[in-house]
């Protein structure tokens, strides 16, 4: 309990402290200003020496400054890119590819670690002894092993021992797993496929209105509506219907072995797989712990009170436990997601071309303008983390309790 409280406090902003204020009234006020002036002088001296040293070092080593390099061509190839790339493309494009790859692995990581975390966090409360023990073992094992080791393990000890392309493991000649990664079919649109996309949009809109209608009806008549099941039905049913009406306007491009390599389909490179698997499992363990703490923070009396007014177990979960637990879980999720984004930098160890590897690594090695390139990269990480913070704070506002 105590630990959770302090963790929460770490995340809240400084609250104005009367004690701190009092402490300074005891001292003559000018003292504070002397300290600050000393600090200022120190900082000026510090930065002056750093800057002058840097400038002279750069001049001595012939390092240029400025952002001129952004338009010159990179001259090296990138292992994987979400947009077309050629070696003659500029460093700007390398930068963008790096950002996209970072975002890609972050999104995969956030989704998978959240799923793992919630599954194992809830499993802790299972009445099944084995399930509970597995949850504990998962958390205690994976959060206590350095994540970079886990990445290397998946990459070196597991994925590079996969068979060669000729002896690929395959499912139904559509999915192939080999030393070059995972190959999956690619969905190709046909002229009429827009019908299905429209159906999906309609289904989402319909569910939105259905929810409003169901809520209104419950307010008026008290009758409840099986929202989850009907939403699921609409979400699956409508597009399926459209699919068949339009005569299945899609086909798959299957990966095929041509010569020594596969062509067509989507190739998930082993670097991405190793990174995504390791990050998800590692962060998932922390999220599971957060979920466990969150659920445990809801006193048992809440469940008992809910039972005593006759609520069903499922409703107790959704109306009483989850809203209160989420208040504890969301701030922790926020910091776990931010660590995840920062941890994607370990891709460098296996060469997955995310921002850090490809821009602050390969590109920097060629250009040599460490200061500009480092700060450009850092700016991206700060921006990504601010975005996560913003989204999670919005989310937190919706689940937070207004008082207490």
């Amino acid at each position, binding site marked *: 309990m105590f630990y959770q409280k302090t963790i929460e406090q770490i995340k809240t902003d400084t609250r104005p402290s009367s004690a701190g204020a009092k402490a300074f009234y005891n001292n003559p006020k000018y003292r504070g200003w002397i300290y600050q002036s000393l600090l200022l002088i120190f900082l000026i001296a510090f930065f002056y020496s750093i800057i002058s040293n840097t400038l002279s070092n750069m001049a001595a080593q012939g390092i240029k400054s400025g952002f001129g390099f952004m338009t010159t061509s990179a001259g090296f190839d990138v292992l994987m890119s979400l947009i077309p790339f050629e070696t003659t493309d500029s460093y700007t494009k390398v930068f963008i590819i790096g950002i996209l790859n970072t975002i890609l692995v972050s999104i995969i990581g956030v989704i998978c670690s959240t799923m793992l975390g919630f599954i194992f966090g809830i499993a802790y409360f299972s009445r099944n002894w084995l399930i509970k023990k597995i949850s504990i073992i998962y958390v205690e094992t994976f959060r206590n092993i350095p994540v970079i080791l886990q990445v290397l393990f998946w990459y070196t000890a597991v994925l590079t021992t996969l068979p060669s392309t000729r002896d690929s493991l395959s499912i139904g000649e559509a999915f192939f797993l080999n030393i070059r990664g995972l190959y999956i079919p690619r969905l190709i649109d046909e002229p009429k496929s827009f019908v299905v996309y429209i159906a999906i949009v309609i289904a989402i809109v319909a569910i939105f209105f259905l929810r409003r209608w169901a809520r209104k009806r*419950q*307010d*008026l*008549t*008290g*009758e*409840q509506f099986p929202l989850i099941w009907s939403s699921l039905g609409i979400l699956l049913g409508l597009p399926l219907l459209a699919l068949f009406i339009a005569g299945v306007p899609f086909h798959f491009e299957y990966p095929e072995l041509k010569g020594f390599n596969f062509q067509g389909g989507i190739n998930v490179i082993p670097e991405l797989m190793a990174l995504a698997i390791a990050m998800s499992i590692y962060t998932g363990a922390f999220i599971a712990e957060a979920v466990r703490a969150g659920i445990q923070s809801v*006193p048992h*009396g*809440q469940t*008992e*009170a*809910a*039972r*005593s*007014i*006759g*609520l*069903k177990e499922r*409703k107790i979960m959704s*109306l*009483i436990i989850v*809203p*209160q637990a989420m*208040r504890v879980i969301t701030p922790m999720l926020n910091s776990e997601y931010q660590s995840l984004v920062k941890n994607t930098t370990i891709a460098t160890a296996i060469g997955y071309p995310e921002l850090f590897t490809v821009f602050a690594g390969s590109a920097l090695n060629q250009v040599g303008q460490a200061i500009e390139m480092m700060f450009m990269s850092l700016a991206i990480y700060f921006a990504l983390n601010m975005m996560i913070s913003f989204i999670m704070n919005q989310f937190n506002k919706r689940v937070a*309790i*207004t*008082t*207490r």
Partner: protein
Amino acid sequence: MNTDHQASIHNMNEDIIVIKNLNKWYGNFHVLRDINLTVKKGERIVICGPSGSGKSTTIRCINRLEEFQRGSLTVNGVEMIDDVKNIEAIRKEVGMVFQHFNLFPHLTILENLTLGPIWVQKKPKEEAKAIAMKYLERVKIPDQANKFPGQLSGGQQQRVAIARSLCMSPEIMLFDEPTSALDPEMIKEVLDVMVELADEGMTMLCVTHEMGFAKTVADRVIFMDGGEIVEQNTPDTFFDHPETDRLQLFLSQILQH
């Protein structure tokens, strides 16, 4: 349902709770030993006894917050067995008030009260609100409806908790030391509400150390020790002529304070 309830006030012959040879163990610890208790409709019962004697456990068995291993328990004609339907049916008839209020901190007072009517009784929102306001008025805090539990005093919170149970129009109310977490000046406001409730003919089982309340309100006082019912009697006999040495000792200890 309501008219039923009104009629029952004058009809105290009906057994509403029948407990026979109830035995319960926590692991190997024998907590409840052969509890036999019959409660009639409209009866007001106070349970007292030293700490750890199994008072809470007994009344928590009545709405199945605790399981028991041997014996039988029937509430309002429904037998308590390991069946979700029966348990739900019984919980609808039985309201409970806890020592630590257990209000839902993330919901307003009004939402705390309407939760049951809306999700269990499937009432329209406006109707649920009307019911909630009716009971909030009865416990004399209608002006707090839109606050959160954390903003209320302990006494107010406990009254809200009572109102929350009443909103489900239960046949039976269980109270587990409803005043022992309260400051002295707040105890009275909660007891007043309970006395009023008793006057209206609610069937009540009340674990409490408020002996004044027991004397004026109870039809029967039960003394428990070591997981069994030692003695039960009308308040007069109970306090003035205890039958066993154990109760005598207990009363003398209480009176010392």
